[in-house]
């Protein structure tokens, strides 16, 4: 391959990346608009737009601006941070099966939040909830990476992740039993399924600062992920402090996932799926994968949240249930694809 050929190939790849990203962005915008237009009360597209900008009847205004808008913003932001966290973890561990939910981060964050709810320590709309969720998520990811060690193989990571999520689940059940609020079991059972229904701007204010901070931390490490693809030692020789990078990623994931879980409950598998959907289009460079994975996560969660409002059912379907129902078969497919690595590469 000559130098020109190489440059041409690189240009084609770059063009494909840009067109893929642009198409993705258009899809996200479309889904944002649909998300504002869909709900139990039928409003015409014109009425929705009018209400969004402060016109129309006050009922339509309240429905669009105070019920649907916060929900849409949360779906966008939470899907985005989940996709980004997945891409960052996969970059850090150079492992396509890494994702927040397989590592027990959302389950642990849920435990933190449940502790606050069940013990009646604070209003569910106070910052105590995301803070508790973030601390628990940080603890779980930190523990996982500490247990699994630096060059852990898939098997060890997944086993440790399984153990941590089971532990978080058991701890959550225990806290439910100890609660004095008679509704707590039902409330938490619902909440663990993950839902964006009837959230308000109070919830947006609760989650968004942490999600933005988490995203900023993860995005700032993009070049380190790229260096890491050459191997840990090569990365170190390029000036990447791998220990610090790990800490940054754990903090970023914990902030993002913790903030998200605190307002929606656990929504799984978006972090796993999003980077995989983007790899064929964007390539395997983990630095370039971050932003498209985030948008894919947004698109996935927006689409899932639109679907739960459209699918006819007697009681509302929880969005977390839908993402898991789609995500788990995908995970199984990934395991099948990685079978050889899993079977042979017990590190």
């Amino acid at each position, binding site marked *: 391959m000559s130098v020109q050929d190489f440059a041409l190939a690189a240009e084609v790849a770059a063009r494909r990346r840009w067109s893929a990203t642009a198409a993705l962005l258009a899809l996200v915008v479309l889904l944002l608009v649909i998300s504002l237009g869909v709900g139990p009360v039928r409003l015409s597209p014109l009425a929705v737009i009018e209400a969004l900008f402060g016109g129309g009847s006050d009922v339509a205004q309240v429905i669009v601006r*105070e*019920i649907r808008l916060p929900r849409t913003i949360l779906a966008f932001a939470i899907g985005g941070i989940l996709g980004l966290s997945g891409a960052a973890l996969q970059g850090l561990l150079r492992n396509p099966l890494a994702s927040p939910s397989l590592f027990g981060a959302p389950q642990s964050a849920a435990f933190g939040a449940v502790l606050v709810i069940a013990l009646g320590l604070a209003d569910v*709309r106070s910052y105590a909830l995301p803070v508790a969720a973030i601390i628990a998520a940080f603890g779980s990811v930190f523990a996982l990476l500490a247990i699994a060690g630096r060059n852990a193989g898939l098997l060890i990571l997944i086993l440790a992740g399984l153990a941590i999520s089971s532990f978080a689940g058991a701890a959550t059940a225990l806290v439910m039993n100890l609660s004095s609020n008679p509704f707590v079991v039902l*409330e938490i059972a619902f*909440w663990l399924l993950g839902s964006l229904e009837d959230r308000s701007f109070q919830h947006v204010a609760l989650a968004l600062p942490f999600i933005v901070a988490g995203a900023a931390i993860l995005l700032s490490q993009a070049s380190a992920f790229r260096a890491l693809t050459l191997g840990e030692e090569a990365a170190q020789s390029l000036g990447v402090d791998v220990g610090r990078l790990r800490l940054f990623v754990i903090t970023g994931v914990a902030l993002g996932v913790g903030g998200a879980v605190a307002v929606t409950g656990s929504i799984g598998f978006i972090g796993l799926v999003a980077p995989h959907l983007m790899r064929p289009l964007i390539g395997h460079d983990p630095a370039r994968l971050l932003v498209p994975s985030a948008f894919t996560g947004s698109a996935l969660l927006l689409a899932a949240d639109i679907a739960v409002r459209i699918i006819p059912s007697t009681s509302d379907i929880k969005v977390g249930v839908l993402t898991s129902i789609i995500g788990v078969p995908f995970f199984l497919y990934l395991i099948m694809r990685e079978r050889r690595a899993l079977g042979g590469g017990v590190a």
Partner: protein
Amino acid sequence: MMRRLAALAAAAWLICCGAAFAAGPRIVSMNVCSDQLVLSLADPDQILGLSRFSRDAWQSWAAEKARNYPRLSGGAEDVLPLKPDLVVVSLFDKRATRDLLKAHGLHLVEFTVPRTLDEVRDQIRAMGDVLQHPDRAKAEIARLDAAIARARAEASTHHYRVLPVERRGFVSGDSSLISSLLTATGLTNAAGELGLGAGGFASLEAIVKLRPDFILVSEAGDRAEDEGRAFLLHPALERFYPESRRIVLPERLTVCGGVMLADALDRLTEELRRVTK
């Protein structure tokens, strides 16, 4: 039907062992709703034990009074040694426990959960018969009817549409006790307009669109101890239904159908006065 069952059980008891106790049967109540009926109709020395939740002020209107009596575990174990003449149970209590008590020769009187004011009157009367204090039952029914009349005088001129909303947006349907309270006072349960005549969950959007005159909730205040309660404090709902458009009826007044409904109705009257001012 209910009343006949209870009367039958009482009659059976009278035939077998009534003569031994001139002061009326000594009883155990196994359910928080029957606790409250027993507490308001029985003599103190008739009450041997009350249900596990009898002292829960959140569920029971008579929680304070219940503190004077033993609280039971809810199982059969601590009922048997008390050797009550009658055990009052709800058909919602554990079947295994009921069967065990029956197998040990105890007389059970079963009460259902009333859905209408007529059924409530029947139950009060039935409990009066069981406890051998029919005069007290009659007085309680009269108190209930007077409270209905007072509430009616306040409400019936306006025909307000009221939507009873609970946590997570659960709306009580037409066949609920709360709905029969509203109807008895001349108010309309707006659940039917939402297509929730049988009760069910209403979305925030649908409630905002419907715009009933008032919503009826069980709690005032601004604290959301869980997401279910946060539903009722959502800014969209608070905008159209601030405190001045919320009728507050504490759960302990409405969760059981019994003599406390007179208090519930008086509270409803007061609340109507407050919100229509």
